[in-house]
């Protein structure tokens, strides 16, 4: 039945026996070698001739929302393993009840048991064979292994076990000790998987720290796991939002931020290199030191800070299409190709700014401070438009940051131009009065952004990436149907939960409000489609599981 059983028994101890035993216990407790073993041995000496009082059985209720979370994240390409200290029966029952594995005949559980090395070896080979054969069939195979066999497998048959690990998408490991949990995580990390460990008890701490991402559930079993983790959430079902919503946004924003920072520095560097060709390769810096320092600090950092609010797809779309996570897993937004794209863009923009500046400010207009300021203005104007083109959603703050940045640029330069002692005295005032300065600016922006815009539009319309398609579908309104996801629901789901795959996106053209915290009443209900009801019983959190993403 899968209940957690506790057996109660008693015996009377007399004083002398206790004193003797106490000494041995103290000694065992303070040995330096094999402490666990010695303590267990001493305790065993005491535990004999007990009279049974009774048995207590505890039903370990799952938290609500667990099956849906697992299913959604599976669709996103994340594989799940369950690592628990419970015994095999309990673990299998729990797995069946939360759709971790499908019951027969659709799913198949392969047991790897055994107390001796040969046993384990035979079992392992048998399971491996089955796995290899059934890989092509659309069957849900999972293997089950218990702590003892795991110990032997990890020590003697590591290679075979690793192969088994790579082949299986689901696994249940029972009676594992905390250190074994950590060892399993390490094994998967060594196979180049990105691992996430989620747990709620003190016995999960080692696994959480070993994994690439550690998530702790702060709750009934205390705050130990939460404290040791990278991320701490309140309930298991929040994992879905953590990965799909927050994790994905974080990836997008990090990719943009890092590549953009390289781009804006490369732009200045390339211009300096080009200038050195016309200054006798002597190392003259086209830009004065005030401008260079202010460029990175004042002129180009604010819009980027605000990019933390950027959202390319709304949460609703992502929850409906978890497969979009494959895109992130493949590293489509931050890889050598995209970096080369930004590098090329920096080079192209540097050429545009440099060539236009030195040709329109030639001969009698050629003065070092003025040319320097024109080039710098050109760079800053280009930045503004580059950030605009790369931003997906414009809140008021972003407008303020992007256009305000331009205003700040001019104000800072006007202030510096008003200081008689600075090398830039009156330069900005002179420039702003010249029509050719503004002509040059518009030319730089048009020549620099035109090809970028054309290329982006072409890619967006004719070679759309998945994110682009979903974006377009979302913004232009209308239903987003995913036809390929209809699976017959043979599992026993709570109540009438509509399948996640087909849903009408009810947003009109103004889908703007996007609550992030799950506690707000709208978010949870939306993710599950129409007609979902919830069980609000307080259940114990499930034992530790961990999931892995495969690098496509």
């Amino acid at each position, binding site marked *: 039945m899968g209940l957690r059983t506790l057996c109660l028994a008693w015996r009377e101890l007399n004083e002398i026996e206790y004193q003797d035993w106490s000494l041995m216990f103290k000694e065992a407790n303070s040995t330096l070698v094999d402490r666990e073993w010695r303590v267990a041995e001493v305790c065993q000496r005491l535990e004999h001739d007990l009279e049974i009082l009774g048995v207590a059985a505890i039903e370990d209720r799952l938290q609500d929302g667990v099956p849906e979370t697992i299913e959604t994240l599976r669709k996103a390409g994340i594989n799940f393993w369950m690592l628990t200290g419970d015994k095999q029966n309990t673990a299998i029952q729990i797995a069946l009840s939360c759709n971790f594995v499908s019951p027969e005949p659709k799913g198949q559980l392969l047991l790897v048991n055994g107390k001796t090395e040969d046993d384990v070896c035979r079992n392992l080979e048998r399971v491996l064979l089955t796995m290899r054969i059934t890989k092509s069939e*659309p069957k849900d195979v999972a293997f089950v292994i218990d702590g003892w066999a795991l110990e032997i497998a990890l020590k003697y048959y590591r290679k075979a076990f690793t192969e088994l690990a790579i082949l299986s998408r689901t696994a249940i490991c029972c009676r594992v000790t905390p250190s074994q949990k950590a060892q399993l995580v390490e094994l998967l990390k060594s196979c180049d998987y990105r691992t996430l460990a989620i747990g709620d008890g003190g016995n999960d701490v080692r696994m959480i720290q070993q994994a690439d991402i550690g998530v702790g559930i702060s709750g009934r079993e205390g705050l130990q796991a939460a404290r040791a983790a990278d991320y701490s959430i309140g309930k298991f079902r929040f994992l879905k939002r953590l990965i799909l919503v927050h994790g994905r946004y974080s990836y997008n924003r990090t990719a943009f931020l890092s590549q953009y920072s390289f781009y804006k520095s490369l732009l200045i560097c390339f211009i300096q290199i080009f200038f050195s060709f016309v*200054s006798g390769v002597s190392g003259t810096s086209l830009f004065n030191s005030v401008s260079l320092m202010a460029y990175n600090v004042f002129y180009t950092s604010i819009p980027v800070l605000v990019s933390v609010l950027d959202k390319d797809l709304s949460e609703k779309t992502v929850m409906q299409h978890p497969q979009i996570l494959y895109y992130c897993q493949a590293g489509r937004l931050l890889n050598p190709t995209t970096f080369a794209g930004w590098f090329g863009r920096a080079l192209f923009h540097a050429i545009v700014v440099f060539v236009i500046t030195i*040709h329109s400010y030639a001969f009698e207009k*050629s003065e070092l401070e003025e040319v320097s300021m024109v080039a710098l203005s050109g760079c800053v104007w280009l930045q503004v438009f580059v950030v605009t083109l790369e931003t997906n959603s414009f809140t008021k703050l972003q407008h303020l940051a992007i256009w305000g940045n331009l205003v700040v640029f001019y104000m800072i330069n006007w202030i510096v131009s008003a200081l008689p002692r600075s090398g830039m005295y009156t330069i900005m005032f002179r420039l702003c009065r*010249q029509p050719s300065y503004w002509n040059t600016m518009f030319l730089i922006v*048009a020549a620099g952004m035109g090809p970028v815009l054309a290329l982006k539009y072409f890619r967006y319309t004719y070679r759309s990436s998945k994110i682009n398609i979903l974006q377009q579908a979302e913004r*232009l309104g209308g239903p987003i149907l*995913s036809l390929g996801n209809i699976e017959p629901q043979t599992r026993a789901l709570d109540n009438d939960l509509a399948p996640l795959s087909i849903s009408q996106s009810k947003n009109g053209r103004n889908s703007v409000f996007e609550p*992030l915290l799950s506690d707000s009443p709208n978010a949870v209900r939306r993710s599950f489609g129409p007609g979902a009801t919830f069980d609000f019983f307080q259940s114990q959190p499930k034992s530790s599981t961990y999931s892995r993403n495969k690098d496509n």
Partner: protein
Amino acid sequence: MEQKNKNSKKPSYSRFSQQELPAWKPILTPGWVIASFLTIGALFIPIGLVALSASDTVVEIIDRYDEDCVPDAYSKNPESFIQDPDIKKTCVRSLRVPKKMVAPIFVYYQLENFYQNHRRFVKSRSDKQLRDPEAKNDTYNCFPEARTADNKPIVPCGLIAWSLFNDTYKLSTRGKPITIDKKGIAWKSDTKVKFGSNVYPKDFQKGGLIGGAKLDEKVPLSEQEDLIVWMRTAALPNFRKLYGKIDIDLEAHETVKAEVENNYNTYKFGGRKKLVLSTTTWIGGKNDFLGVAYITVGGLCLFMAINFILLYVFRPRRLGDPSYLSWNRLPIA
């Protein structure tokens, strides 16, 4: 999560911290993109034509004189000609006015292959010294033109001042000399602030190597406009600097006689010297680049717009079509 009150651990709610700020989410639809390309094309081509026509109205006379102003005897060794103080360096040039030039006409000297933007040249000056008579010892950056042989500070110090251009021009037409106004050629801000009105040149150009012009020690620096113009370092190796202004009109097909004192030694490094007379318009002197660039960019934008229109008409692709999603195309895995 910290406890905010006894009952709830919920953090305080604000639109900003929960990222629920209303947002405008634009996407690149064909309509917008094609319209913006068309607009830019439609705006830029007229601007380019206007700029080009303005540049066309500028009349410019350029005369290169450094090769012709060396007498034949010294044509193989022009340096010794320049460096010899006893030979007369006057040279008469004849300039033809192609179209009517309306006053004011600006007289420039144009130098080519002269790297005023070389790092060691650019830093060889002392702005403090130029402003303040008390700071005459601030010659730190000016090496090698910082102090005289007996350790007295040179005012103004540095290579920029030392290499001051010293060719002079006298223009005359139809037998009558033309006055060249040499006042007001430097930036106002320089004459008022950067160059002090009580700083006088001292021990200037007294060393063994003469780099350029000598300065009148009785005239304060704020009035030495040639020096001020020269010390505004140019950004490129080919540049023009203002020599003076002419306030009369020059008729078409006139011949202007220019008497040039060919003093400046550009022969050592292969530099070129040119005398330039030019009118100006609202965009400055003769510069076709802006006009041509605007027309080119405008034309390219129109070309792209037309391309996109054709693509849209002949190969339409419905935006946001979920059948393009890869997981909708592949069979269930």
